[in-house]
């Protein structure tokens, strides 16, 4: 009886100003997850491969940039060099790993990226080192006192999260424009729809895949920088992929707006769950499996995600 009362109490606590602050904070941190998810979706949209190595690509990019700047390389030059490195890495990965496995089952492709993930982990930490590096991008991280602008809304919003949200919006809008209004974007959509038909129409598959992986490499780099500012460049960055996973599963593997929606949902539910419901389960730290539980519930209702394409199964 007491337990039900405490569930009720937890629920009602959510509908306070503090609850609103947690909700907004959660949604904004969820945007960080969406940034990771965008990388996944890009590759899945174009080559049908779920790239598990996204996390280590994040780490590799951030580690390269940080190691270069620590060796007194001009930050802008380091940015350019790292972007080039990521582009080359993307092309190499596409050539050596994806191309030979092009007609295998999705499970094989996924496991190849899992193996690639492990490989890149060793490579990143072997090439540079495994120490923890800090990064300073000059993004302000003080909170905004919303009460100064809207008198009755006495909550705090983090500037850093706002910046990340702005980057995410720019990325999403930019990608949307790219996919809808450029020729290359059109080719990418054609390839993702049916790559044999695209080939039949004359779209050069290898070039398109190379472009996709290269673009994803650069986006991963940018996302990696933002995450690194939040978390600092270390091995834990690779676990970003585990945060991005529930996001794409909710939003649908082929939808970029779905990434944002999924990120908002996961971020919000994670923080709300942690703050308000953790005591009911007897402890702290329920964040991780709570996010996956949320994704699980969504998938049970809609197995391919909110915006995902319905797969038609045939024998």
């Amino acid at each position, binding site marked *: 009886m007491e337990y039900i009362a405490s569930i009720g109490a937890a629920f009602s606590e959510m509908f306070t100003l503090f609850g609103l602050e947690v909700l907004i904070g959660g949604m904004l941190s969820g945007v960080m997850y969406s940034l990771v998810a965008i990388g996944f979706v890009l590759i899945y949209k174009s080559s049908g491969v779920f790239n598990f190595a996204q996390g280590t690509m994040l780490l590799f990019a951030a580690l390269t940039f940080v190691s270069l700047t620590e060796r007194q390389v001009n930050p802008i030059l380091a940015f350019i060099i790292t972007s080039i490195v990521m582009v080359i890495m993307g092309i190499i990965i596409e050539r050596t790993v994806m191309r030979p496995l092009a007609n*295998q089952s999705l499970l*094989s492709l996924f496991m190849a990226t*899992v193996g690639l*993930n492990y490989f890149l982990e060793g490579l990143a930490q*072997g090439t540079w080192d495994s120490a923890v590096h800090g990064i300073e991008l000059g993004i302000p991280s003080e909170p905004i006192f919303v009460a100064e602008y809207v008198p009755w809304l006495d909550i705090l919003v983090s500037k850093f999260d706002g910046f990340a949200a702005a980057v995410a919006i720019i990325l999403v809008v930019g990608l949307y424009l790219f996919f809808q209004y450029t020729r290359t974007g059109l080719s990418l959509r054609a390839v993702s729809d049916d790559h044999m038909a695209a080939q039949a129409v004359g779209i050069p598959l290898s070039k398109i895949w190379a472009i996709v992986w290269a673009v994803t490499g650069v986006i991963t780099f940018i996302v990696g920088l933002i995450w690194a500012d939040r978390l600092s460049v270390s091995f834990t960055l690779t676990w970003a992929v585990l945060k991005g996973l*529930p996001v794409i599963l909710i939003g649908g593997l082929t939808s970029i707006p779905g990434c944002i929606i999924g990120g908002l949902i996961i971020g919000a539910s994670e923080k709300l769950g942690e703050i308000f419901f953790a005591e009911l389960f007897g402890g702290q730290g329920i964040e991780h499996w709570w996010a996956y539980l949320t994704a*699980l519930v969504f998938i049970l209702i809609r197995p391919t995600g909110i915006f995902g394409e319905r797969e038609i199964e045939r024998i």
Partner: protein
Amino acid sequence: MYYRETGQKINSYAEDRRMVPVREDRWVMWAFMVVMFIVVPLIANDYALSAILIPMMVLGVASLGLNIATGYNGQLSLGSAGFMCFGAFAAFNVLFRLDWMNVWVAFLFAGLVAGLVGIIFGLPALRIKGFYLIVSTLCAQFFAEWFFNAYPWFLNYTSSGVAALPPHHYRFLPFQDQIFDLFGLEKDYNAYIYRYFITLIVTVALAVAAKNMVRSSTGRNWMAVRDQEIAAKVIGISVGKTKINAFFISCFYSGVAGAMYSYCYIGNVDFMIYNLRRSFLIVFMIILGGLGSILGSFLGAVFVYGWPIFLTRMADWIFGGGTLDTAFIENNSKIIVGTFIVVLLIYQPQGFAGLWNSVKFRLRVWPFKT
């Protein structure tokens, strides 16, 4: 003498159903058993037992569990370490709280507990297809890590969070104290040699059981659901039951492996060792060893676990002691294992077991080429 099955006549249904039909294969199998049961205990030192043989066997059983769900049934699971965790804690609590309990029943109980947890987290498989199932298994993994941290009762409120396992937990014979007194043996029940035998017996039993399950209609159902789910449904196989079945047995194996991991390998119960990294290592083991192969699970476990040790030993032997530092070994192992995974997936999707099968095939037709 050639390695052929010609001339080996079958005179009864029982002989037809043999697990190892070719006589030469049986010789190899029995020779291997003799080596493992008799030769190794006589010549192996504690290091070889504790750091090489026992962990390889334990991880082999864990890989076998995962192979049943993923290789034979197509349900990718990234939470094997979480189920191992449930098994380890179940065995600990039972051996700790019940005086009459012995290790065999404790491991069985561990398997059952893990299997039941597996069914709960496997229920979404009825609605979610193959790849999306990693959500459920990752949920299980994180849940296991959180659960045993949040409820210290399971560790008997040990303040350090790690429970060392005292010798009196290792009850593997009836009237153990009296027998040991009779033979004048020391009562250090958690000595590596006893742990080795416990692990060996459990591993052999589980491997034989798995081999037979795979040969039976259970295994055929698993593989049918993996290959063509809709067609399997059409011919009357209950897909839901098959998937839950596979999950239960897979998690049973993981649970027993988890209990063995704590009791026979590490010697402590600690939920931190059953982390996501362990789950991924087990996935690598089955990918490298061969999905859908019993032998493959063990080969993969030997390779993934043994490569860093091999590398260190080789470097020490060639260049003298302590040449390679741990960071290098770790990174190198990751690079090598990652490369092997990709290369094997491209050129030999059946992994090391596939390589072994081609070798066997070559031997079978020798001195001819094909």
